[in-house]
């Protein structure tokens, strides 16, 4: 199955992209996707356990993913 990973601000800049289509195995979690993104980019700018939202709702590292999910890795916000 496939999920869309979205990256923003400093994370998008460090990884050189803002959106990644990623194939994952059944039973994959948020933590799996974060590890995979960090490994593939070879960057250390992502914290080990960044904030993640799945379909616009904050998730935990253990949250299970489903096909078509949008997984957003959320840097510290700074609006206003």
């Amino acid at each position: 199955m496939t999920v869309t990973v979205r990256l923003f601000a400093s994370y998008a800049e460090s990884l050189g992209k803002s959106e990644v289509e990623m194939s994952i195995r059944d039973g994959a979690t948020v933590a799996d996707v974060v590890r995979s993104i960090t490994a593939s980019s070879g960057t250390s700018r992502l914290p080990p356990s960044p904030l993640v939202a799945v379909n616009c709702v904050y998730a935990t590292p253990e949250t299970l993913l489903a096909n078509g999910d949008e997984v957003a890795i959320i840097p510290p916000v700074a609006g206003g």
Partner: protein
Amino acid sequence: MMRASIVRRAIDIAELAKEAASESCGATAVFVGTVRSTNDGKEVTGIDYTAYEQMAEKEMLGILREAAARYEIVGGIIEHRIGTLEIGDASIAVVVSHPHRGNAMDALRYVVDETKSRATIWKLEHYTDGSREWVGAGTPPP
């Protein structure tokens, strides 16, 4: 009347105040955040705002609903502009209306503070020395 929007154009405060007003409300409180010329002692030339738009709008609308529950505001609007902004440009406007002034001003503070700390929006500040920096002001809730 509750609305939360990410916009890519100038924010029109008078329009927003009109939109949030109603005959039952004697008090409208407004906050406008603008790009200022210095931040942490550094000379700013401008700010690029980006957002996770869909989530930011959802979060901001949630904040307005919380304010309605806590302070019984009748109208509430948040507009946050994204894109490249110059000194003096308004990046955010919050408008709330209530029959009475105390609640309107309490709600204004709540909505502004929560939006700053929770909306999925980021800023890249540009400085006069040519450097730039992602500002990491808040920490969103888990």
